[in-house]
């Protein structure tokens, strides 16, 4: 088991190394070069020369790469020029992280509590109306652009019906104490329950829009694997032994059928960030996705560096955890 973990860890380090090389190459090949990118086009020749020297652009490429890497390892990605001008890029990342984690967490929860039961009952009544209906729903879900869904939700529930707030993370007039920057959690910790409630109201619409991505995938995988498990001999045995439907469902069917679902959740992290870029932009939700979209459109390269690096690290880490979790559940994996 330890050997398996070590091997996967080494692979993860290798992937991160290649990411850093690619990121370095990318920054070097951007139109206008790094100096223009960081200073903008209106900089004087003197400041350009100074920055070139500070950035070490007069040195050979491997040396430059080494500086880039050591800066990155120390969390030093430079200062944001556009998104939050003057803020350290790493700090900006840490400020925004809780917002996106909170949003993704709610989205995953929404997806799980709707997709797993729906997938189970669709498989149970295979070919029935519920099955056909929910399969069609999940396929349509795949076909709807996430940001459009977000717009529609916002238009109906926020603009037309006024049920929920249009944008942001909390109401502007709310004075809440911040502990962890996870707004819902903060409200619970400080017993300012109205603050939690306010944060939840801001989360509902973006979380539903974001959940549409993992929902479709989790639903289809649950349905397919429940279908497969229902045909297994041990399920028939359990039925013929006269076990109650609840026990068969819990111990025999779902427990086996949910294994592939666990893996998928890991794979969804990348998709969630993609979705977060779009939904956060629609709802002006101050998270990482919103920062990333702004950084791209305003060419804020310090922020881009930190966000892309962290996205890759996050994805690799989550999949490492999933692999390890999976190896613990299913010993056959370890030998591969």
């Amino acid at each position, binding site marked *: 088991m330890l050997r398996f973990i070590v091997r996967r860890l080494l692979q993860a380090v290798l992937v991160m190394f290649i990411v850093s090389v690619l990121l370095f190459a990318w920054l070097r090949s951007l139109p206008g070069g790094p100096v223009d990118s960081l200073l903008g086009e209106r900089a004087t020749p003197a400041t350009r020369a100074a920055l070139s020297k500070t950035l070490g652009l007069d040195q050979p490429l491997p040396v430059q790469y080494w500086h880039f890497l050591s800066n990155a390892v120390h969390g030093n990605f430079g200062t944001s020029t556009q998104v939050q001008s003057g803020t350290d890029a790493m700090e900006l990342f840490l400020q925004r992280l809780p917002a996106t984690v909170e949003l993704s967490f709610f989205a995953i929860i929404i997806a799980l509590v709707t997709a797993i039961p729906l997938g189970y009952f669709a498989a149970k009544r295979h070919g029935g109306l519920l099955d056909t209906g929910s399969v069609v729903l999940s396929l349509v879900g795949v076909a709807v*652009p996430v940001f459009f869904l977000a717009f529609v939700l916002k238009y109906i529930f926020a603009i037309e019906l006024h049920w929920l707030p249009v944008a942001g993370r909390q109401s502007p007039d709310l004075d809440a104490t911040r502990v962890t920057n996870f707004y819902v959690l903060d409200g619970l910790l400080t017993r300012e329950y109205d603050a939690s409630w306010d944060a939840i109201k801001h989360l509902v619409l973006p979380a539903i829009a974001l959940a549409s991505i993992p929902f479709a995938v989790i639903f289809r995988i649950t349905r397919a694997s429940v279908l497969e498990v229902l045909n297994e001999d041990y399920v028939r045995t359990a039925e013929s032994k006269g076990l109650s439907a609840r026990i068969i469902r819990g111990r025999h069917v779902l427990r086996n059928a949910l294994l592939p679902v666990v893996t998928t959740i890991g794979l969804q992290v990348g998709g969630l960030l993609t979705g977060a870029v*779009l939904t956060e932009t629609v709802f002006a939700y101050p998270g990482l996705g919103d920062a990333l979209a702004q950084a*791209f*459109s305003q060419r804020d390269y310090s922020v*881009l560096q930190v966000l892309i690096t962290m996205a890759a690290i996050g*994805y690799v880490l989550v999949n490492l955890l999933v692999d390890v979790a999976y190896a613990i559940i299913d010993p056959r994996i370890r030998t591969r």
Partner: protein
Amino acid sequence: MNPLQRKKDRIDALAATAAGGGDIPDAGHVSESGGLSLIGSAWLRLRRNPVFLIGAAITVLFVLLAIFAPLIAPHNGTTKYLISQVTPDTPIPPSQKGFPLGGDDQGRDFLSRLILGSRQTLIVGVLATLAGLFGGLVLGTIAGSIGGWVDSVVMRIVDVMLSLPSLVLALAVATLFGRPSQWTLIIAISIVQVPIFARLLRGSMLTQRASDHVLAARALGVRPAAITFRHMLPNSLGPVLVQATLVLATAIIEAAALSFLGLGNPDDSSAEWGQMLGKAQDLFDISPHVAFWPAGCIVVVAFGFTLMGESLREALDPRNRR
């Protein structure tokens, strides 16, 4: 599937083999040539699959619309017929006689642009898919046929590309080009697909490498290149082509997402649905229909491609063979 249906399928399969003059396949093993090929038996199942038929119908209609768009559209897509009605208070000319969907923010006929947009949308989707497919084919063939350290290196690069969220990768590629255009959009979307195609192809190439017919070819002294291109590649293409159908759907959606984030084609003289939807974001609160129409078209077309891809996948899955 019910027993009667299964029986019917078996008879049909037999009938087809008899008609084709091939041998009746042995139990447990179906020969690649003669007999009922995987593709042949898949087609038999597809022909009666309503899901496939609906998907195929949507796709065919879409392609026909794209081809004949200039003939179908009531007006041309560039003349600003209704420009006099575009004012700061009413940025979108309303529906009127001769212009059932009204105009766009520059007074052009909205319905015509929607119809003409099908062509550009199809071009973006198909070119992005083909480019991604080609890149994936090259990488996957190299990795799968050579194996060893080449395989490891190629697959690590593929892993890295997969480790970035697709939209982030597409955005990163799009920013590499100073000025966004239709081509940067296509390249950005296709690069995201390369690792997926490469992985798929490599996986099925590896299965092929271990298969008996490749072993037989090798034993006969067939050259490695011939084994790769005549024996392994054609037999590995099934899952890749299924994926291509599904990618057509995502490519169109992704084009819309990139346009939405401001990295789409800024030149809107020839309309494209993703671009129309991306540009509609500021007008959404005032006249949602300028977003609903292109979005609806994207959803229907992407749904059609997805239906077709999913039913193809199911049909080509050897576990479903009867």
